[in-house]
């Protein structure tokens, strides 16, 4: 294993924690007192408190073991449908996210040049006044649209968005276009639902297109998939890399990158031209059944064979097996589906395969496309309407990307607008719990865009790379130290509640946004006294007390009315395999083949992916995850490496159109000869991340910005690189 933090660091950490305890004792120990009242802790302050994980966005229920004011162990909450008593390695390591020796525990104000990492500690009053003052200056001088806001999926995001809309800026960057835009836009257009849920109880045949479920772990779903395989369900898995999911699959198909949709279209061809689907049944609910045979005629297995490198007979056989499983077949929608500029078409083909199997339509089928609005049934604070926004968005939605939903956006396109000043110049950037320096493609461009900013403020719990380049850092309480708004899952609304006091001066996002809102003259938009009051207002329609929810960890929700009719939230009310909306926007109304670019001579596809121990770019500094992760490396097919005169553990230079990076090489049989894969999440620039700094390379330094014109997704596997000995 690679180096880990030393014993001395451990002692240092202990000392820091006891210092925090001394401070805590001067204040009323609110968390402990509340936990005692809820019956979680005994008189000595020891016991178990239910809350929710935040090491990824799956949000498992957890039970925190607390002793002497410290959290000492996390277990999965058996009552939570996302964890069912289990936690993944990230969830298990969660307390070292809270006790990371690199936590930022005071507001910081930059004193050196941007990127030098010189900051001074400040009081909350000074830091908040400074941020609000700068934002007000920018608003008065250039209009509210000159402030860019960006944040990644989290439970307090609703109040982040509240701040953004109240401030009046249209410029909102989320991680979504770097992640699941292709899936969400395709399924929204086809089924009227963003992400259909999967059911594995009776599944017989599962098709996964790069959904690396055994490494990109979603605890309950990973468990369900594993049990389905154990029962004997067939898993066909498409991936250019032999991932751990590939090793569990019945059949692994190392398809050529960018050609998934050709494979899927040929499957559809086999099913419709041989009439393997129950068309009479499906027809009642699907728009496009009539023309699909003609439309798919050209996509024969032989045609797909030439493109994908998968034998026609294999495609034909898999299509027939899929069709034979009927509504117990599942073509998994995937998750991070931002791979190529044709990824939207891949997702449309997946949506179509599901429609043909009848799995959405048949009771007990493997896919559910029920619409349930997030937070429906919960109360919200009353507040005035938002100001009208007239400025266009800098990311081109919808004027350049007509079909991308506003809340998804096209984050990677923001920077060109910032650098060119067209259609107008942005001047400030407010970032919460997000690390665009690492997550956006073409890191050089991101840092150039930062250079155009008069002011950058970041909310985070550690000095992530974006915070490192910021002017002010506002320290957030970790997920074990704070409340967030309730999360409805099925028939329950789950609570994230603090299990220990916030360390140092760290405060919750709900508190930070409200404080900032008040200083910006937007206090009317933050109609809650504190975090508990916010949750009480959420609970009001349920008639449940906060005390009861704190004790149980959740509130029961009333059952939704289901009238039994099958309708879809699309213009026709049916599943739209043929989409007028797409046609009207100038795109193909059918799932269709779009040829992606291919690497030139001596170039490789640069693949990205996931490891089970990390979430994107946010967890590499967690000492426990660092301890149990493999050393990050560049994977290359062993025979290719040997032809290039490269061996295992050689240092190599990887070069793309926009940058270069150095990495150690892993020569392995587990990848196609025309691909390389870089362990994701590493190559941090912030020296404030003492565990992670200096380890691995960042693919954001290499990724070229390519945007799928329909979904706005960044094509993360479309960057081609050369590799040579460093």
């Amino acid at each position, binding site marked *: 294993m690679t180096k880990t933090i030393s014993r001395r660091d451990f002692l240092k950490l202990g000392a820091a924690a006891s210092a925090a305890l001394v401070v805590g004792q001067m204040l009323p120990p609110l968390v402990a007192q509340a936990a005692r009242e809820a019956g979680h802790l005994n008189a000595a302050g020891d016991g178990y408190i239910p809350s929710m994980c935040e090491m990824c966005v799956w949000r498992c229920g957890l039970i925190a073991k607390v002793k002497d004011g410290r959290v000492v162990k996390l277990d999965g909450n058996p009552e939570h449908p996302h964890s069912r008593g289990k936690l993944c390695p990230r969830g298990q390591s969660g307390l070292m996210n809270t006790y990371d020796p690199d936590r930022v525990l005071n507001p910081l104000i930059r004193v050196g040049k941007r990127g030098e990492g010189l900051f001074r500690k400040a009081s909350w009053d000074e830091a908040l006044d400074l941020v609000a003052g700068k934002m007000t200056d920018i608003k008065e001088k250039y209009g509210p649209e000159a402030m860019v806001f960006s944040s990644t999926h989290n439970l307090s995001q609703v109040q982040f968005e509240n701040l953004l809309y109240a401030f009046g800026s249209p410029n909102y960057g989320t991680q979504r276009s770097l992640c699941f835009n292709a899936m969400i836009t395709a399924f929204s257009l086809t089924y009227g639902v963003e992400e259909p849920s999967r059911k594995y109880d009776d599944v017989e045949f599962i098709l996964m297109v790069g959904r690396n479920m055994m490494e990109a772990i979603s605890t309950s779903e990973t468990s369900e998939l594993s049990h389905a395989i154990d029962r004997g369900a067939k898993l066909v898995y498409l991936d250019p890399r032999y991932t751990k999911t590939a090793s569990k699959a019945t059949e692994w198909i190392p398809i050529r990158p960018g050609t998934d949709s050709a494979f899927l279209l040929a499957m559809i061809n086999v099913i419709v031209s041989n009439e393997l689907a129950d068309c009479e049944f499906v027809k009642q609910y699907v728009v496009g059944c009539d023309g699909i045979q003609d439309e798919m005629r050209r996509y024969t297995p032989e045609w797909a064979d030439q493109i994908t490198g998968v034998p026609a007979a294999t495609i034909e056989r898999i299509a027939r097996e899929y069709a034979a499983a009927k509504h117990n077949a599942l073509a998994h929608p995937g998750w991070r589906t931002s791979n190529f500029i044709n990824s939207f078409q891949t997702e449309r083909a997946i949506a179509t395969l599901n429609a043909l199997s009848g799995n959405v339509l048949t009771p007990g089928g493997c896919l559910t496309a029920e619409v349930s609005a997030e937070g429906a049934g919960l109360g919200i604070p009353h507040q005035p309407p938002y100001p009208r926004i007239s400025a266009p968005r800098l990311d081109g939605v919808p004027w350049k990307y007509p079909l991308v939903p506003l809340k998804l956006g096209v984050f990677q396109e923001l920077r060109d607008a910032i650098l060119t000043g067209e259609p107008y110049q942005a001047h400030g950037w407010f970032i919460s719990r997000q690390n665009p320096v690492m997550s956006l493609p073409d890191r050089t461009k991101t840092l150039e865009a930062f250079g155009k900013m008069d002011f950058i403020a970041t909310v985070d719990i550690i000095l992530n790379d974006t915070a490192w380049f910021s002017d002010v850092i506002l320290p957030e309480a970790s997920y074990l130290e704070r409340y967030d708004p309730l999360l409805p899952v099925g028939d329950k609304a789950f609570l994230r509640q603090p299990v220990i006091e916030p360390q140092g001066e760290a405060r919750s996002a709900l508190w930070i946004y409200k404080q900032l809102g008040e200083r910006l003259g937007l206090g009317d938009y933050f109609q809650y006294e504190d975090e508990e009051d916010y949750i009480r207002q959420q609970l009001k329609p349920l008639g449940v007390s906060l005390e009861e929810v704190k004790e149980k960890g959740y509130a029961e929700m009333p059952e939704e009315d289901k009238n039994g009719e099958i309708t879809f939230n699309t213009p026709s009310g049916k599943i739209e395999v043929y989409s007028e909306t797409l046609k009207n926007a100038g795109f193909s109304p059918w799932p269709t083949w779009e040829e992606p670019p291919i690497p030139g001579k001596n170039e490789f596809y640069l693949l990205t992916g996931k490891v089970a*121990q990390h979430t994107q770019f946010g967890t590499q500094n967690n000492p426990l995850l660092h301890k149990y992760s493999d050393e990050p490396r560049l994977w290359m097919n062993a025979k290719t490496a040997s032809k290039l005169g490269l061996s295992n553990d050689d240092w190599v230079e990887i070069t793309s159109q926009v940058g270069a990076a150095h990495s150690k090489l892993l020569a392995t049989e587990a990848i196609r000869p025309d691909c390389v894969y870089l362990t994701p999440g590493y190559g941090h620039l912030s020296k404030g991340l003492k565990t992670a700094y200096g380890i691995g390379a960042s693919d954001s330094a290499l990724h070229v910005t390519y945007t799928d014109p329909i979904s706005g997704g960044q094509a993360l596997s479309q960057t081609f690189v050369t590799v040579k000995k460093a």
Partner: protein
Amino acid sequence: MTEIKHKAFLFDATRCIDCRACMVACSVENNIPMDKTRIWVAGVGIKGEFPNLDRASMVYHCMHCEHPGCLSACPVGAYTQREDGPVIYNPDVCIGCRYCMNACPFGVPHFDYDKGIVDGAFIDKCTFCPQRIDNGQQPACVATCPTDALEYGERDELLKKAHERIAAHPNRYVNHVYGEFENGGTSYLILSHVPFSELGLPNLPETPVNAVSEAAIGLTLPVALGWGAALTAVTAGVHLYNRKKEEVATVESTTEEVGI
């Protein structure tokens, strides 16, 4: 008097996704220093040639043998075996002689060579989480396993379950439960889709190591008595000296990185 049933683990290599949740959970539950571990990954990893590949890996910790060689070899009684099976190690009694390391056929007990005996280094290994199992919980590694590759229960029951699984899927598993008889039986039972040697497991006879070693020790004791007394006096002196120092130290071990 009712017989006390032995507790055990069942590990199924076909289910393990090598996510290492068990390793992190153990590390937190037992407050293991950042450079130590009590669970390892073993096995050959990826095997075959592109695109005909397979993967062979497993996680393992102390096997909690029915007839623990470590316990027999320990000259000071630092090891004990609970009535329900777990083999417990007591660092307060350990003199750091490392006999147990030689006696264990699985290479489980680890010693902190950075420190050495004078600095108060001890052996370390899995304890079966008595603080959890006595509290009605599963051991930390089992409780969190997302795919149920690790299970916990009574040894008899788990053996039955393992054989049922083999019978239900004869083409999936090697027709053997490793640990049922090896070394006289272990409490870490293993099911695999590849030969056990590919998981890094030794091919052991059914006769436990300590059956042989105890006989040998019986003969050599009178001979060694003089030497033994002298050595024990020295070691005990060092040990007493160490006991005065409060610092707790743990063993060195490394996680073997599996080919990925």
